């Protein structure tokens, strides 16, 4: 299991049976491979659907009118339904999505997230990210602990344009699980073999270190 898969496996444990879950494009979709037994979740996609069920299998009809959040053709499970974008974001912003899982460029100890814009580099736009982060009941950020140059991505204060202020609940990395509380970022779990010192040294944010720290599995 590589780091991305390890992160996905832990993140999937946040899901409860019956949850409506929105998974961002990329790493978050890996969570589907690690759903706990007896946990059945419904995938919501912001383009107006509940019950997405992965890419069509070989020989299965690929309906161009069923697409996921990346625009790729997907399938739907029995019991799902479709609706318009306005209704979809009503669900998202109204708190009806139990969990949203997203990636991050930066995330900070105040629960701020930056994941949509790097000025001078990309002009992609925020899509539905701001709505999801400000609307969902539980906001989980999945990210490698540092960027590809080894710089911390978990900061005292984000430097990039924000996606939302004070909305992140959990950060799951290959090293640890951090819980954003009113007091600050609490180090709740460590990956096997990882020390508190390693996490602290690779984190710019101030961390609250409780006496008892769980183990990521």
């Amino acid at each position, binding site marked *: 299991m590589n780091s991305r898969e390890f992160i996905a496996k832990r993140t999937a444990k946040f899901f409860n049976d019956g949850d409506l879950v929105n998974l961002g494009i990329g790493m978050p979709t890996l969570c589907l491979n690690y759903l706990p037994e007896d946990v059945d979740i419904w995938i919501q*996609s*912001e*383009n*107006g*659907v509940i019950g997405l069920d992965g890419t069509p299998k070989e020989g299965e009809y690929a*309906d*161009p*009118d*069923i*697409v996921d959040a*990346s*625009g790729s053709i997907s399938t*739907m499970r029995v019991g799902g339904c*479709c*609706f*318009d*974008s*306005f209704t*979809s*974001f009503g669900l*998202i*912003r109204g708190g009806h999505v139990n969990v949203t899982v997203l990636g991050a460029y930066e995330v900070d100890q105040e629960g*701020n997230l930056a994941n949509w*814009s790097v000025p001078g580099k*990309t*002009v*992609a*736009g*925020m*899509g*539905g*990210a*701001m*709505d999801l982060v*400000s*609307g969902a009941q539980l906001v989980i950020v999945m990210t490698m602990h540092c960027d590809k140059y080894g710089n911390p991505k978990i900061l005292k204060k984000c430097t990039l*344009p*924000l*996606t*939302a*202020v004070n909305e992140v609940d959990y950060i799951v990395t290959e090293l640890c699980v951090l819980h954003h509380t009113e007091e600050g970022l609490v180090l709740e779990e460590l990956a096997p073999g990882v020390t508190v010192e390693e996490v602290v040294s690779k984190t710019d944010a101030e961390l609250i270190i409780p006496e008892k720290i769980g183990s990521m599995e």
Partner: protein
Amino acid sequence: MAKSKVVSIDEAMEKIHSGQTLMVPGFVNCGVPQTLIAAILERGYTDLNIISNNTSVKGKGIGKLVHANRIKHITCSHIGNNTETVEKVVAGEINVTFVPQGTLCERIRAGGAGIGGILTPTGLGTPVEEGKQVIEINGKKYLLELPLRADVAIIHAYKADKIGNCIYHRTARNFNQIMATAADFVIVEAEEIVEVGELDPDIIVTPGCLVDMVVQARLEDRDE
């Protein structure tokens, strides 16, 4: 007996002009009115202001208007799926205003439903807040977001009856319904045009009263 709103694509194109503001539905390239876009391209309309969620992908759907330099300004939530749009925006050839997708929905619906504005926490403390009024209610802050309207909305329906009642298929519904409420003139292309009465009154999504013209969508305009 109610009059048929079915017209030729040529007749529909008389209602569009260069410089207009058009609402164009679609999520990436799903639910996009391909036939009407092809006709707009053919007619040479340019300097368009587009309100859309995104710009499909390079060379397809709304991307055809991008490629042919017909767009002056886009109000949208995302252009990342279309590298050509990103290039033209970076080069200053197209102006873009980014709106969070849910806020875009609310603003279009407000434009169609006579709502003067809506309060949302989405975008607070982000660049979306710039220039906007912040209103505090019971200690909670919200951005005041204003309605959007267009001159013309071009809509892609799965089935439309001859008086414009429409239904949509799966996620191709996306922005079609709300955009049909928020433009001065509404043109629907339908994959299938059916007789009045063939659509169950309970499943109609867009009432015909919102629709001015119906044209037959052409299979050859659909991106593979």
